[in-house]
């Protein structure tokens, strides 16, 4: 499947859920040191589900389109389900095949999302 088909470029140029959530429970930023990509996620939880999620950041088409598609997917989903998502699941969500060197670009948003949820989860347990 062509990585740079129109819907990927559309999500890159017009990312969904781009921006800040002011009453977010957690805000976490991760970066990819090899290319300088940065994704900052804003997450608000309600009854163990993702109530609101948004992101800001800069990066390549893969990183941004992946954050855009993942945040669309994650809204309303159970925390537990998100925590169990694998890289393969992510590739199905964003509907692309990636070479090894680009998987880390796509994974940046999933890693950030999982880290966000985990940190909120821990806080609630305490």
């Amino acid at each position, binding site marked *: 499947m062509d990585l740079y088909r129109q819907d990927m*470029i559309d999500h890159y140029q017009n990312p969904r859920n781009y921006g800040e959530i002011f009453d977010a429970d957690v805000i976490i930023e991760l970066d990819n040191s090899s290319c300088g990509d940065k994704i900052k996620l804003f997450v608000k939880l309600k009854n163990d589900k993702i109530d609101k999620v948004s992101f800001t950041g800069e990066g390549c088409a893969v990183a941004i389109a992946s954050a855009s598609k993942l945040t669309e997917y994650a809204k309303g989903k159970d925390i537990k389900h998100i925590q169990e998502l694998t890289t393969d699941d992510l590739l199905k969500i964003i509907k692309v095949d990636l070479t090894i060197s680009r998987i880390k670009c796509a994974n940046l948003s999933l890693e950030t999302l999982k880290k966000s949820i985990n940190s909120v989860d821990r806080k609630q347990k305490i």
Partner: protein
Amino acid sequence: MQKTDFPIFRNYPELVYLDNAATSQKPQAVIDAVKDFYENKNSNVHRGIHSLAERATLEFENARNNIAQFIGADPIEVIFTSGTTESINLIAQMLFEHYENTNEKKTILLSEMEHHSNILPWQLLAGRLGWELEYVRLTSEYELDLEDLIDKIKKRDVSILSLTHMSNVLGTINNLDEIFSKVKNISPRTFCIGDGAQYIPHHKFDLTKNNNIDFYVFSGHKIMGPTGIGILYGKKKLLETLNPSKVGGGMISKVERNSFSTSELPEKFEAGTPNIAGAIGLSAVINYFSELNESKVENHMSELTNFTLNELNNIDELTLYGPQNLIKRGPVFSFSIDGIHPHDISQILDQDGIAIRAGHHCCQILHREILKIPASARVSLYLYNDIEEIKKLSISIKKLITQFKR
């Protein structure tokens, strides 16, 4: 020189390889020399009495002589290392020991265009000695700001100055001998170090005409040689006084229970079994060069550099970072395209069979603080590239710009 001299292009005839600043492809002659060593001469060097060991030693020392002659050095000034990075680390460690007991606070001077390999060893050294680390600024033309350099030399007690001979991002060539000569007129005791990793593959370089360079380093793999072999050149009188920072087998004259004395140059700095096959492979590169028509290669490269510069300049959406003056630059071109990340540029070009590099090219300070971009795309040429390949590159870049057009 023919493209078919290089097995990789026989195996991938369509490959457009424009990532030469990262590493170069290897001619058959170099691969054969390495293979021949392992098949017919393999033995450890020095101290062996049997004939195979003698043959290996002879080949290894011949390689050293060949490389020394190539750069205009005395063979005892040529130390084999694993590459540029190890060479600079070794110099920094030698100088640490040299300055360890001085209490004066001195300065190490670098420039804003240095590769991480010519920054990190000096950051460590500055930290260990409690010294200052300073960076010479760049001009708006992406050249070294010589006024700033001289100003810093005058105002500070600069003990070490380490500069790249050619930038791996900007392509900028620094006229090291001229710069170092000015520096030494003001501050004769400053150690002047040249990083030749990018310069050496493209230019004839004669140390006998560059008397102001104290240390010079480069890698074999960027000049068509094997990976894991590189050179540390140091002026004889410096290498004689400085102590080795790496110790072990092969570099001693006498070992006692609590002490040792070192052997003569160059073994003094080559602890452990060296990369014998690598040295022989690098020497084969020099033989390969000597069989080429020098002026033909020079003309080809300057024509190709000029053509690439014009092609890239003619793409409006593209921003090129580096000197426009051909005399001041080598064939390395870093650029960005607004709205398209360098990783995407590289990946789309790869779909067209064109290999370029994307990232910070081990120059984060230059990208973040000077170019003010997180990463760039880089095209770098070598003697086997041609005009047709650059035309393909230019078509592919224009195509991807259209693909991303809003």
